[in-house]
């Protein structure tokens, strides 16, 4: 297991800061950036998947019932899904933390 960023000294870094483990950016929690999150209204959702297609972060998952929801680890709350939704079933709500 590699050290977390806070534990790394300059001596631990690889030459040129090359990353030897491909795809480890997936561990980065971009969900921390979010101040608003999308919420789906299942009454209006026609399960078309437009939100899933347009999500720039692949942060929307399909549920077993065929509806959609966001992956809170990655969703930055950009609101593109709200903009693109055909039926207007997605609304942004403020994070209350």
């Amino acid at each position, binding site marked *: 297991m590699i050290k977390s*960023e*806070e534990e*790394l*000294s*300059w*001596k*631990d870094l690889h030459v040129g*800061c*090359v*990353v030897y483990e491909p795809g480890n950016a997936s561990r980065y929690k971009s969900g921390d950036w979010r101040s608003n999150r999308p919420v789906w209204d299942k009454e209006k959702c026609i399960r078309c998947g437009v939100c899933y297609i347009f999500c720039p972060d692949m942060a929307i998952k399909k549920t077993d019932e065929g509806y959609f929801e966001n992956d809170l680890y990655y969703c930055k709350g950009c609101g593109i899904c709200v903009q693109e939704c055909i039926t207007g079933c997605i609304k942004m709500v403020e994070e209350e933390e």
Partner: protein
Amino acid sequence: MGKKIGIENSLAAAEAVMMANVDVVAAYPITPQTHIVEHLSELVADGELDAEFIPVESEHAAMSVCCGSSAVGARTFTCTSSQGLALMNEIVFIAASLRLPIVMILANRSLSGPLSIWNDHTDVMSIRDCGWIQVFTENGQEVFDHIMFAFRVAESRRVSLPVIVNMDGFILTHVIEPIEYWDQEIVDKYLPEFKPVNVLDPDHPVSMGTFGMPGIFTEAKKAQDEALINSKPELIRAWQEMGDLVGRHYRPVETNQSEGAETVFLTMGSSGETVSIAVDELRSQGKPVGQIKLRLWRPFPFEEFRDAVRGVKRIIVIDRAISYGGPGGPLASEIRSLLYKEDNMPVVTNFLCGLAGRDVTPENYIDMYNRTEKLSKGKVREEDYIFYGVRE
């Protein structure tokens, strides 16, 4: 030893790059670097040099291509000047932070404006802090030798940093000199096969040029600084080995008649030869004058420099670049700063001269010496610098 050929320095430089068995050349022509690129292009087109010559659309692209080719493990060369360097600026810094061992000749030319194609050091001083190893040369032979040196140290796994070989535009690029070529077997002995520390290879994927959050950026910069500082022993070793092989001995700081000198000139690049004529003349008049030539600009050779000026009373720093409204020319301000708190700190006078190719003669340097004698009796302040020969 290799044969001596009378040849234009730029053509010899291109042939040194060929003899160094370069794999990729990506460059855009710009005066006064043009003959180097043209000759490399010719050598590739004629089948004499088995390399990729990539005629890019700009210097920004040139350095970008160089980063790519160096990252896949190809021995990579480029060269530029002045505005071309300014255009590639962004990627120059990235090449160093990625620790890519690219070699670049910088045919030093003033930065516009007024638009000028002539020689000074304003271009290289604009990228002083780019993180590359930076050396200066005084004549065509030194350029030739330092191309071999540059590849050797850049690619050393203990270094893995890009190298700039500074070569004064026109004064060096466009003159014909006798150049002693190295025998190919000597080159091959001096320059082992390039085995990069990191390489882009689909079978062993790595990521280069990734994001650095505030939590890691300081560590990344510290590591880069240490890498540049720690390259010095390897540079000295490479110069020593070159001396053993070809009989020319280079050092980070070189001196001429500095034994017992009370006043020394400090130069970088081709003006060192003119200064040496002035020093000979002053010595013949019985004046205790010597000369220091800074070959290695980055990493700065602090120890060697302090040793060279020990006991010296006056240093005449020749700057060929300006730091507008700053504490003297870029060279003088560093010299004053590194001497701060030294015992018996010498008086440092600073002349900005040879800007955009204006001739500076041995008589001019003798005049600077005489003015320094006079100035040093008064108070020379840190911010004092003199535009030598400017018409009032």
